[in-house]
């Protein structure tokens, strides 16, 4: 059944199902989050200290999520994007305020790509081999957190959006700024792409701005002649595409929480002496939304199984829209209570809306498909 796709790629048949290992990983993450990160707890902390670094240390250290994508030679698990995707589904489902996506996916992938780390653990391109080796080890164990100094509003098609950084003549100092950087405020190190080279910077100015997504605030990062270590060449568009593919799984998790929570609510909430979920107009809308989520799951799985530019663009184009639509519908179907700060649905709406912009809007990804899928525009 997936033979068609596999044949096109000429590889072993890919699967769109979850493996047993992935289901175990999911159970571990979900269990921890249920215990330590219910929506009420997230709501309580977002205005004081949004990130839950205790939770992050447990996730990274005990469950080992931080090192999933890092080769075993560096203390990681050497897992594939498919496992990372399952973690993201669960983190999305909990709008968990931890820097997994920004550090363990985006920054880690940039580092691995820049140093051209292969599965055997060789570092053919790294300029600063020791620094890369040491950093990967710390990231894998969750002892350090990194962020990629690229605007979260940039995309594989416009990777430079929001960035204005230049390297000094000696190639060891950076100046300029990047706006809308996610995860910078909890990062120990910043990875900064400048003119195709990835730099490692520890001393940068990070100013968090009030953010639409309360659980993943963005910051303006400023470099004022900051000391920087060049690590190797970097293809930012590829890094953002990899991230975009995985973000689709986080969006799936957001959509799933919204659907599940709304279903529970409409079964419970009575008006006119009936559960509101017994009204046919509500039922039909939820049936359509469920079908959107079913397809979002297939799209998210497709993006990590195939990893191609087409599959990523498809997953982002679909899941970005679906997450927003279902969060909006969840709010509407909760009625007045959904408009209150005390109900967590707004956290999901804000996450979904910010994620719609992050790493390319659905429209950007559809536009990319014009050439990727051979649907050219008007001449």
């Amino acid at each position: 059944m997936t033979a068609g796709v596999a044949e096109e790629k000429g590889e072993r048949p890919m699967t769109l199902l979850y493996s047993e290992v992935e289901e175990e990983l999911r159970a571990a993450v979900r269990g921890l989050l249920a215990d330590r990160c219910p929506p009420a707890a997230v709501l309580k902390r977002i205005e004081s200290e949004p990130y839950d670094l205790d939770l992050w240390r447990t996730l990274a250290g005990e469950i080992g999520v931080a090192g999933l994508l890092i080769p075993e030679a560096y203390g990681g698990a050497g897992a594939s994007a498919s496992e990372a995707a399952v973690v993201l589904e669960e983190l999305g489902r909990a709008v968990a305020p931890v820097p997994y996506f920004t550090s363990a996916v985006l920054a880690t992938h940039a580092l691995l790509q820049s140093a051209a780390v292969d599965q055997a653990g060789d570092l053919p391109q790294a300029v600063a081999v020791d620094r890369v080796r040491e950093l990967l080890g710390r990231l894998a164990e969750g002892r350090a957190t990194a962020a990629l100094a690229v605007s979260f509003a940039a995309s594989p098609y416009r990777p430079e959006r929001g960035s204005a950084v230049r390297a000094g003549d000696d190639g060891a100092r950076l100046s300029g700024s990047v706006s809308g950087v996610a995860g910078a405020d909890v990062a120990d190190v910043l990875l900064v792409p400048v003119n195709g080279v990835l730099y490692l910077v520890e001393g940068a100015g990070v100013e968090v701005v009030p953010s639409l997504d309360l659980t993943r605030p963005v910051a303006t990062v400023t470099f004022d002649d900051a000391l920087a270590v060049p690590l190797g060449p970097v293809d930012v568009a590829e890094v953002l595409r990899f991230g975009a593919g995985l973000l689709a799984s986080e969006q799936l998790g957001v959509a799933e929480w919204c659907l599940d929570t709304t279903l529970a609510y409409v079964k419970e909430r009575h008006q006119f002496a009936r559960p509101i979920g017994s009204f046919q107009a509500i039922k039909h809308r939820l049936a359509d939304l469920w079908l959107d989520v079913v397809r979002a799951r297939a799209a998210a799985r497709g993006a990590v199984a195939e990893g191609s530019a087409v599959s990523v663009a498809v997953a982002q184009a679909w899941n970005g829209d679906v997450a927003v639509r279902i969060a909006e519908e969840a709010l509407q179907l909760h009625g007045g209570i959904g408009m209150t700060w005390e109900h967590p649905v707004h956290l999901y709406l804000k996450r979904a809306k910010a994620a719609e912009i992050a790493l390319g809007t659905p429209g950007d990804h559809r536009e990319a498909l014009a050439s990727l899928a051979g649907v050219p525009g008007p001449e």
Partner: protein
Amino acid sequence: MDEAQLKERTAAFLDRNDPSGDRLDFLRARFDAGLAWVWFPEGLGGLGVSRELQQVVERELAHTPQLSSVQGIGLGMAAPTILAFGTDEQKRRFLRPLWTGEEIWCQLFSEPGAGSDLATLATRAVRDGDEWVVDGQKVWTSGAHHSRWAILVTRTDPDVPKHRGMTYFVCDMHAPGVEVRPLRQITGEAEFNEVFLTGVRLSDDLRLGEVGDGWRVAQTTLMNERVAIGGAPVRRGGGMFGSVLETWRDHPELRTHDLHQRLLSLWVEAEVTRLSGARLREQLVAGQPGPEGSGMKLSFARLNQALSGLDVELRRDLGYDDWTFRRSEGVDFYGRGAGYRYLRAKGNSIEGGTSEILRNIISERVLGLPSEPRVDKNVPWKDLPR
């Protein structure tokens, strides 16, 4: 009385009362002269003439002290209800300070368990001699924190079907047991309140209408609410569209074909909605009020939501202007950022009748479609599933 006579009367009033003097004195005098709401009876701020003539007075007195927007609920909802159901005593007591703004009013209708199905409300009022003791919780009350009075619907008989066991009161917001708490919304601020009523004692002369007749009284209030919604004329390409278009025109670098096509579709939808509003107002003036009114709020909610969502996407701005928890006096679609507009517009399809309820109303009252099987018609309120 015709337009000319009314103009004369207004001129005479202005001769006697200096609009640049004390604001409250001027408003009191205007009320006493019958120039407050001319279609109200004489002695109650009116002249007992046709409502259309009010615009004559407004034009003549345009440069004199005006009423405040915090009086909206008093003027739009409480006053017509008091006029329709109040005793002479109640009308005399309440209408003058309501109109002058000396006393602000709020509305205690919705409850956490009674939103779309208002008639299922649970706030109890139990008679105790000449008084009623009220216990319950109300929600979505704007202005409760600076209100002197409230219009309040309560459950007085739980043993009869829900529509039959309600009674309507004027609630003294200064009475012991009334607690007002700001209700924070997803925008960060608190436009509304929760109001907790604990053993609040209201004397029987605060009752509006008969015991058990509260549903009918409340319908009068709500009818007047619906008239106000979805009405003001807008320019072509105006309203919330204006702010999106400004960004669009000023920032060519933000444009994409995806956004362009969606924006053009919304522009068309906004324009046909604007034309429908214009047509509706023409019909009203021509004395042919059509059923189209029910659709306007539905259309505006959808448009506001779609437009504000596109606006956020267009700007690609991951920031938000201000999450501070503070009171606000209303919707600020033009002063605040795109993120605020996006979030606040979500309420447009919930407040004042959800879009789902409006579709029910249109399908039954306008299109004549049969109602669904009712399971709560003859069940005593206390036995309803909830």
